[in-house]
């Protein structure tokens, strides 16, 4: 005889209202599982998409994603000369906010050697890769541009020649691939007016303060203007059989640069830029879960307390403890399972609406469900304790 079902039938509206409340909490817990997964995927996406054997960055910097790193462009020639290096390519990675088609958009610019260099787009779903040295771009489809469209960036206009589906920057924003010189121009080239002002300022300094003649000042001026031939990292492909450790040590020793493998880059991110948001997400999931369990516990306690006289009657007429334990536990498990199921249905139908990527994994659902079941059993402890403590004598006497 299923007492829990009969009891819940009588209190069905209250039970449904409770399920709605707890289901929303479970939906948030499940969404946070997905947000956590999405956040890690996006945070490491560029590293994993690029995936070279080595990342060479400015000395003692954890760049180019976890921390800023700036190197002169020609360093990739030096790296390429190290024994064991099959290919070394310059790479720029830079998050920016610019107007695209009249709307402000955040995205990351990736500049790479378009003529066979490493670090270019991996999965082109429309159009083709960059073929020309200038004024072509490949964008992630999330940017919302189409193949053939013209996009103004800085001083120039770029034609979208391809769309990619892979990779995003740490904040989940789309990637835009440009040729290295184009990326340098977009990122480091300043406004024409500012260049003219700086040139005039320098020229005046050279002629007035340093005392150079006008022709000598003109000669030095070009050398003194800021260099825009900068990159953020050199990405390296090792020769077959080359020892990663040995090549890294050579680069560090002779070129005074820092070197990371892709796994080390991932660890830098996990222990650096992603560490606190990751901890915060985990903590928030735990708090939400505890709140859900406390609510279930209180609901079951209230349900049990309302039946305390009936429980006393059951005990008096000889019901064994397992009958009462089963009733309380079944109510708790029914509440938890129904809430979880509806929470799962809800989040599975709404996760696409989240502004950042939410990745729902069956493994996460199963783990959360098992923890929820365990939680439900623990949550019913309070009600069970009260039920088992109830004296059958309570059934005797008046109201």
């Amino acid at each position, binding site marked *: *005889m299923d*007492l829990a079902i*009969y*009891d819940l*039938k*009588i*209190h069905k509206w209250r039970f449904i209202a409770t399920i709605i409340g707890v289901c929303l909490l479970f939906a948030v817990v499940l969404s946070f599982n997905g947000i956590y997964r999405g956040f890690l995927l996006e945070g490491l996406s560029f590293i994993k998409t690029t995936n070279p054997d080595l990342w060479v960055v400015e000395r003692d910097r954890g760049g180019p994603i976890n921390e800023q790193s700036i190197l002169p462009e020609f360093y990739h020639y030096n790296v390429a000369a190290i024994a064991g290096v099959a290919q070394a390519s310059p790479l720029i990675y830079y998050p920016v906010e610019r107007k695209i088609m009249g709307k402000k958009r955040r995205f990351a610019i990736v500049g790479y050697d378009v003529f066979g260099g490493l670090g270019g787009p991996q999965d082109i779903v429309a159009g083709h890769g960059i073929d020309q040295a200038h004024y072509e771009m490949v964008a992630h489809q999330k940017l919302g541009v189409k193949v053939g469209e013209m996009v103004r960036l800085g001083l120039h206009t770029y034609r979208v020649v391809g769309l990619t589906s892979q990779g995003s920057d740490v904040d989940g924003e789309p990637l835009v691939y440009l040729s290295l010189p184009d990326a340098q121009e977009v990122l480091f080239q300043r406004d024409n007016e500012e260049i003219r002002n700086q040139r005039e300022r320098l020229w005046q300094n050279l002629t007035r303060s340093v005392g150079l003649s006008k022709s000598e000042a003109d000669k030095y001026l070009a050398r003194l203007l800021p260099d825009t031939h900068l990159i953020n990292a050199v990405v390296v492909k090792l020769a077959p059989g080359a020892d990663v450790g040995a090549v890294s040590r050579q680069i560090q020793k002779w070129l005074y640069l820092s070197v990371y493998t892709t796994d080390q880059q991932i660890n830098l991110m996990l222990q650096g830029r992603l560490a606190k948001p990751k901890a915060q997400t985990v903590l928030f999931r735990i708090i939400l879960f505890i709140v859900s369990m406390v609510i279930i516990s209180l609901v079951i306690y209230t349900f049990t307390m309302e*039946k305390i*006289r*009936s429980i006393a*009657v*059951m*005990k*008096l*007429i*000889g*019901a*064994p403890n397992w*009958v009462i334990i089963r009733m309380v536990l079944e109510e708790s498990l029914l509440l938890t399972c129904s809430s979880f199921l509806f929470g799962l249905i809800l989040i599975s139908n709404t996760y696409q609406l989240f502004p950042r990527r939410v990745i729902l994994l069956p493994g996460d659902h199963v783990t959360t469900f098992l923890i929820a079941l365990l939680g439900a059993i623990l949550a019913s402890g309070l009600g069970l304790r009260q039920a088992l403590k109830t*004296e*059958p*004598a309570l*059934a*005797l*006497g*008046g*109201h």
Partner: protein
Amino acid sequence: MEVLRIEGLSKVFGSGRLEVRALEEINLSVSAGDLVALLGPSGSGKTTLLLCTSLILDPTAGKIVFDSQTIFQKNGWSGGVDIRRLRREKMGFIFQSHNLIPFLNARQNVLFPLSLVGTKGESADNRVMELLEYMEITERADYLPALLSGGEQQRVAIARALANNPRLILADEPTASLDTVRGKKVMELLKKIAKENQSAVIVVTHDVRMIEGFDHVYQLKDGRLNLG
């Protein structure tokens, strides 16, 4: 045949200056088919005696023999006796406030004690219908207790108490929440049950108008039991 024998039963609550002697040297014997009334004013020990007889409360001293089995003697409850099992298989309870399980309908309330002893399926359903017919409440079988009148609830409660053909029925003020006419009807039913089912019935009441036709009437006063 003797169903219940109580010898020299005492119950003391508290100790020292706070000591309350609720029952003193109670002796009582009830046979199958006996209808016994326990009368007494509030605080006389009626409920305490009922609790000890129901095997819920530990007596301080004395002996309880139920269905030819010694359940309690001075050293405590007899080892190997499953008291809850005895209650569900051999005792029936009728309460002052009916105490039907509110989320079960009349039929399910009667079915509940049957399910506790493993009676299932058609035999359980037949027994339930038989009892509801006996109590003349078949047409209200699918009603929840909240939708039944006080008298109807008490009839369902009696049907529930009879479900497992108990050797002993303990009724605690079964007419207290009913008007005189309905109360008398319930008492008539209990008399009928005692005679037809050969169950021993002990009724605790403080209403002397209700004990007409009882086989034995006892008076409880200050914890002592006297033949009324």
